[in-house]
């Protein structure tokens, strides 16, 4: 009996920790050992109070371990770290648990894809959510699944969307209180987008918010005819949450068809917007549309960064947003009020924003049959990769592109499961070796008070890497060139770099394992973890 009791005691010790409570999610910034949600914390600042690695010793970073994925597909996933265990998605939808200190595997879940999948931009996945001892993942073939975080065993799965119709699940879910929230991707396939909440116990749907309102619903007046039924408005990046205001914020994708707006006159709400929702019932509290009637594919699928600070002499609850359309925005996140907006890259589709933040469009910048060169490019002046807010410098930093596309207008034809886009732009993806005007990438640090860049770090190529900042005075990021680097958060000076030999298309994270601060980033098809030389 005593032996059993001892064994039980051991098991309970093992089971203690390595789980995530709703409280852990709220206080994520106070536990710098872990990275418990896609954006690291509900405010999505991608900032950690960790200073073992700092400006004075970052040059002593060394490689601690590499984990190689058994997949050649694009590595966009960001891992979670919970009490020494790292959970990462191997493209497209396998899940692997690793020892965060050594990179050795505990277990592996292999998802068997079913049916055919129609995706615009690769079979990508951005990550996981965790609550209790369960991991949650959306899959390319349209399922929400729950895994046992201790074993990788499938606990339940629920089919949410029809992948043959162009729907897929690529975003990392967000757990808010007792619900798992995620939405559907597929904005190039004439979908009707939504965001919904599900029970963590069995996947039962608890509420649904349609990003394209149906007849009789507020916002439907911004559509004509039946265009709303194929109006797009996908959700493909994890939102943020303010526990004090009890509001969730999510960015929405482009209207469909992308590059020909003739079939959908009007502002096309709630595409290219941020929507603020009540997490208990999914009711819309406010919205702000960044690009009404978008015809350039400027999804507002960026991460809402929530900051409480003094702004222009008054303490405010702010939302900072570097948008794909080239403008940096400051909003009051309690009510959606537009406070400031300034371009952070060359913008030719609009001459500026009016007093309410509505863009003043430039004549002749819309796609045409012959093509129109317009800034930013179709990939945007920035895109889905994470920005960071550093409370010590008070600066909002992000990866930017200075690049243009030639936008063509074509005839959109809806056929189920095929792209519904209306032609394609030229100049989608710069290549420094082949393009005459490949543009360039920058890391910019913007002062939210003014919207002006305080510093810029310029790269020859462009970047798809998000940013991570820390109390060590550092910003970590990477580039498509394959460099992983650390900048001085105060002035953008390059302090350290390593050539990882593959593009970075995710965001670095930092955490501790056995007391040592580590930084992990994916490059190419592998995860690389760095720490200080011991």
């Amino acid at each position, binding site marked *: 009996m005593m032996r059993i009791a001892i064994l039980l005691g051991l098991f309970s010790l093992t089971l203690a920790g390595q789980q995530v409570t709703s409280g852990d999610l709220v206080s994520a910034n106070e536990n710098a050992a872990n990275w418990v949600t896609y954006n690291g914390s509900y405010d999505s600042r991608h900032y950690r109070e960790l200073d073992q690695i700092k400006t004075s010793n970052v040059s002593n970073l060394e490689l601690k371990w590499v984990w190689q994925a058994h997949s*050649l597909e*694009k590595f966009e996933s960001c891992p979670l770290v919970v009490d020494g265990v790292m959970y990462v998605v191997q493209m*497209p939808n396998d899940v692997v648990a690793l020892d965060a200190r050594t990179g050795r595997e505990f277990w592996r879940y292999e998802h068997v*894809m079913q*049916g*055919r*999948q*129609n*995706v*615009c*931009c*690769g*079979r*990508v996945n951005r990550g996981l959510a965790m609550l209790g001892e369960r991991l949650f993942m959306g899959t*390319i073939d349209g399922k929400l699944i729950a895994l046992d975080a201790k074993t990788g065993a499938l606990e339940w799965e629920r089919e949410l969307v029809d992948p043959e119709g162009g729907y897929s699940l690529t975003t990392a879910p967000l757990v808010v209180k007792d619900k798992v929230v995620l939405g559907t*991707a*597929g904005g*190039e396939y004439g979908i009707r987008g939504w965001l919904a909440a599900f029970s963590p116990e069995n996947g039962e749907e608890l509420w649904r918010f349609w990003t394209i309102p149906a007849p009789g619903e507020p916002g439907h007046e911004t559509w004509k005819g039946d265009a709303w039924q194929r109006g797009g408005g*996908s959700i*493909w990046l994890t939102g943020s949450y303010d526990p004090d205001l009890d509001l969730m914020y999510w960015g929405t*994708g*482009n209207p469909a068809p*992308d590059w020909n707006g003739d079939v959908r006159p009007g502002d096309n709400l709630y595409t290219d917007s941020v929507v603020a929702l009540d997490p208990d019932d999914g009711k819309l509290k406010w919205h702000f549309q960044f690009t009404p009637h978008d015809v350039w*594919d400027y*999804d507002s*699928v960026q991460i809402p960064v929530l900051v409480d600070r003094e702004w222009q002499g008054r303490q405010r609850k702010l939302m900072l947003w570097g948008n794909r359309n080239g403008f940096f925005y400051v909003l009051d996140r309690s009510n959606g009020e537009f406070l400031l907006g300034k371009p952070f890259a060359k913008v030719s589709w609009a001459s500026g924003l009016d007093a309410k933040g509505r863009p003043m469009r430039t004549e002749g910048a819309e796609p045409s049959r012959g093509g129109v060169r317009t800034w930013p490019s*179709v*990939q945007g002046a920035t*895109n*889905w990769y994470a920005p960071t807010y550093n409370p010590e410098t008070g600066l909002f930093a992000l990866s930017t592109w200075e690049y243009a596309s030639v936008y*063509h207008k*074509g*005839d959109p034809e809806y*056929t189920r*499961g*095929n*792209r519904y*886009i*209306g*032609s*394609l732009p*030229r100049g*989608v*993806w710069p290549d*420094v*070796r*082949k393009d*005459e005007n*490949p543009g360039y990438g920058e890391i910019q640090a913007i002062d939210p008070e003014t919207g002006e860049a305080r510093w810029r770090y*310029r*790269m*020859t*190529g462009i970047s*798809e890497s998000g940013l991570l900042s820390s109390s060590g005075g550092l910003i970590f990021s990477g*580039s498509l*060139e*394959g*460099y992983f680097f650390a900048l001085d958060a105060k002035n953008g000076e390059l302090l350290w*770099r390593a050539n990882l030999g593959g593009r970075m*298309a995710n965001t670095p994270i930092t955490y501790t394992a056995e007391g040592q601060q580590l930084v992990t980033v994916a490059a190419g098809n592998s995860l690389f973890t760095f720490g200080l030389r011991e």
Partner: protein
Amino acid sequence: MLAKALPLCFLFATAAFAQHGVEGLSNPYKTPEDAEAGGRIFRSHCAVCHGPEGSGGKAADLTLGRFRHGSSDSDLYKTISEGIPGTEMPGIFFNGKQMWQIVAYVRSLSEGRAAEQASGDPAAGKALFFGKGGCSNCHRVNGEGSRTGPDLSDIGAMRSLAHLEAALLDPDQQVLPQHWYVEAVTKDGKTIRGRRLNEDTFSVQLLGVDQKLISLRKDELRSYQVVKKSAMPSYEGKLSDAELQNLLAYMASLRLTR
């Protein structure tokens, strides 16, 4: 959402037509109207990777008439409908007629070039290329000549006669970025020139004039510039009309066996 250059996924199912099997069939829809209809679909679904004119970009250049995954009509049908597993090439899902029309359009991209006839003597042009003309001092054909300029082993399949003539007489008219060259001066005053192979924020990789591969760190250079002109001199007035025609005939004859 076009998050990044559209490419893509693998798709394991086949289009409805393919499920009935197309192996060994030739294209029943190959009129100019069919190719035009296929072109409309191509521009919507394929052009983002293969380029609006099919001349490549992120994905293969389809104007060369070279198809690595099979060049029969049914091979092309299968590749387009099913995609290429293990690559970013997806399948697309249209009815059988539309799929054949896409095949017709893809075929049309590489037609026409073979019909061009040059008036000169290719053998005399070859002698000029490797002799008096000095072309092989920079260019390579089927393993002979220097690598410092573009390899011309397949240039007859890739370029029209008019384009080749323009390139000889006015080389700066169009210089593709992959043929730009670099002039760098090291901190100890040494000048280095070569064709730019690659470049990033911190370094640049060259094929030097002596055919050596060179990698330079930018922070070790005194100066550095990418020259966007051709390193080739104009042949305007340097060749007789007959010599020019002979050289063009030789270049037009350069096609790799497929």
